[in-house]
């Protein structure tokens, strides 16, 4: 008898330990019994913007503090997401249907592919059209007549140059053409200056280059979509010839020598520290560099012209990241009310003040744009026809193709090898994600 009692005691101890563990944890999902009261909800918000817009996290924390003061029965648990797991973490959560109430993904395909998988509640069902009409760049997330997410900001990626370092090499103007860029690299190197400060350990510089320069031989974004659906081979020089341009930059020593062992953020920081003459950076990053290096020291320019397609003359303005409400959230109306509140003029103004990035809203008061550089950036961002091609890639192609292919070049490989990586990634996407391919093809046909 004694035996069994001991064994039972032991078993009880184990269960008790596990149970006590279970009790210390929060339940996985909040019950949706109370209906969906916009004034009473605890929201979880997976947020990403800081890499685009330094200052974004603090701004959002302050907004939440203010909002929850006005709506005492609402709480917002802000979870800033790291860049390299932004897509992966949400995809994992979506499989469990128990992730956040509000999530952030990059615009277009990263949002739409989640929508196609049933993880997104269209925001146009929750917010009146009179409100969404004020939001900018909503075309980036519109599908089948519905709007799937909300933009917060709108930014471009200009080329920043350091006027002092340029002067050191006897240069005054930023490069306007590709040949000019290459000869300036030589001049800068001769003067002992590193021309570019970029980083590609995480594949993001290569991905940016694809978006900034790759599009320059295209007449519209459809040229890229056709390469995804298989109508044009990716190896077509019209689509992938830009790797020759990237290889030139590498060969002519335009890029910092440690580009392959630094992440994009780390590489760009070299420009901010005055260690490189040029860098592509978001509007917010460039403004930050101007503050540290001196506003008269930093100039901005459009990307030098390399291709002759219609898109070569456009800028690359995008909302970049998109906030959306998840299909499983029990607090959709509460989430929508909070997101809409972020577009109130006072919040738009404080966003611009915090990040130097323009809010994605017609109601933003342009009078707030003061400095010459900011006016210049505003002019770039307002040019018509802007597009950010990376957003039109299926996430798995972006991750298997775009990132690694750029790394092939920045590590000294040949353009043909980079194109091969893309071709394989596109093939793999087509066989492994037949549902997404079907939706994508429909979407291409419909647009």
């Amino acid at each position, binding site marked *: 008898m004694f035996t069994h009692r001991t064994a039972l005691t032991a078993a009880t101890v184990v269960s008790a330990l596990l149970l006590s563990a279970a009790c210390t944890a929060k339940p996985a999902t909040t019950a949706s019994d109370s209906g969906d009261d916009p004034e009473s909800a605890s929201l979880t918000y997976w947020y990403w913007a800081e890499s685009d817009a330094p200052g974004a996290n603090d701004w959002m924390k302050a907004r939440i503090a203010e909002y929850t003061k006005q709506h005492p029965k609402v709480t917002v648990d802000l979870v800033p997401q790291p860049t390299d797991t932004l897509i992966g973490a949400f995809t*994992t959560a979506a499989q469990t249907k128990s992730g956040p109430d509000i999530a952030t993904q990059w615009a277009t395909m990263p949002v739409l592919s989640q929508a196609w998988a049933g993880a997104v509640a269209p925001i146009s069902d929750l917010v009146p059209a009179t409100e969404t009409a004020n939001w900018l760049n909503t075309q980036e997330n519109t599908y089948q007549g519905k709007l799937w997410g909300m933009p917060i900001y709108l930014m471009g990626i200009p080329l920043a140059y350091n006027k002092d370092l340029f002067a050191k090499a006897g240069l005054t103007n930023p490069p306007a053409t590709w040949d000019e860029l290459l000869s300036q690299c030589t001049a800068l190197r001769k003067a002992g200056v590193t021309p570019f400060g970029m980083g590609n350990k995480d594949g993001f510089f290569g991905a940016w280059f694809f978006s900034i320069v790759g599009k320059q031989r295209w007449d519209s974004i459809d040229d890229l979509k056709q390469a995804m659906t298989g109508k044009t081979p990716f190896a077509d020089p019209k689509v992938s010839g830009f790797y020759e341009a990237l290889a030139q930059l590498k060969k002519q020593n335009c890029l910092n020598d440690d580009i392959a062992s630094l992440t994009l953020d780390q590489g760009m920081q070299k420009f901010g520290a005055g260690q490189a003459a040029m860098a592509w950076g978001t509007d917010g990053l460039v403004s930050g560099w101007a503050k540290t290096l001196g506003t008269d020291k930093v100039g901005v320019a459009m990307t030098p012209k390399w291709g002759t397609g219609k898109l070569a003359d456009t800028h690359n303005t995008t909302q970049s990241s998109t906030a959306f409400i998840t299909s499983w959230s029990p607090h959709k109306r509460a989430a929508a009310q909070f997101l809409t509140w972020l577009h109130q003029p006072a919040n738009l103004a404080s966003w611009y003040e915090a990040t130097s990035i323009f809010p994605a809203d017609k109601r933003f008061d342009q009078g707030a744009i003061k400095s010459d550089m900011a006016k210049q950036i505003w002019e770039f961002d307002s040019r018509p026809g802007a597009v950010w091609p990376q957003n039109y890639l299926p996430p798995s192609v972006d991750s298997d193709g775009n990132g690694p292919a750029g790394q092939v070049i920045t590590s000294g490989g040949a353009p043909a090898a980079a194109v091969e990586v893309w071709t*394989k990634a596109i093939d793999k996407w087509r066989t492994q994600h037949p549902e997404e391919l079907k939706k994508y093809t429909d979407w291409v046909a419909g647009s």
Partner: protein
Amino acid sequence: MSKGRWPYLYILPMVAAILFAFGYPLVSVLRNSLYTGSIYELTYVGLGNFRALFGDDVFRTALGNNLKLLLTVPVMTVVALLLAVLIHEGVRGGRFYRAAIFFPYILPAVGTGLAFSVFLSLNGGLNGGLRALHLNGLALDWLGSPDLAIWSVSGMVVWQQLGFGVVVFLAALLSLPAETVEAARLDGASWWQLQTRVSLPQIRPTIEFFVVTEAITVLSWVFTYVYVLTGGGPGNASMVLEFYIWKEGFAQGAVGLANAAAVVVLALAAVLIAAYLVLRRRSLSSEGRS
């Protein structure tokens, strides 16, 4: 006491734990490797996942890299043996050396890996040191070059695992009877003969265990190193099987590919597990005899 049904009651929690953590998952992964789709909607594709897997360059790179990592095993074994023999023969500060060399083994690879990723970057600590010694030619792009990245990972694996070898070999050497070595020395055996003919043959079982254990480690327990050091790059050059499974299964939702890759890992591990069991049985029966 040895009679009665009590043992069945006592093994119950153990059996339940094993079924939960190993039994069901192993059956499930074998079955699901024949299906594709998301976690909730599976479609039967037979061996389709395996065909796709071996047609995928990235997977082949991953497999090749895990096999390359196997080369660290002989390196670790030889170096660890050498260090263990040196310490065993009695040097000043032998205990300190043992503790210092062993120390990396117990540390979290995430923490030390972060240090390595900074240390090995082109303008990081290692190259800074090399340049200070005017060895500029050796200051390579350890993490940024596709030819070097996986070897840098393997370097960190050796750095972390070496001390484990030293400690187990040293323990085995210490358990040897002193007489045999003494007798051989009196017979005029050289240092080299002493090691290769007397000491090492006697600790052979320990060496074999170490080799098998480390082989399984580099095959299936290197995710952290790759995740923190290179993220599989540049251009997938340092992709390994675990990272591939994680990326396909959790980042991209290609559950079929991930399950099939897991089955491949399991098959490779099964060979080594069988070797391990044979070694274990041999050691148990030799213990029984003595």
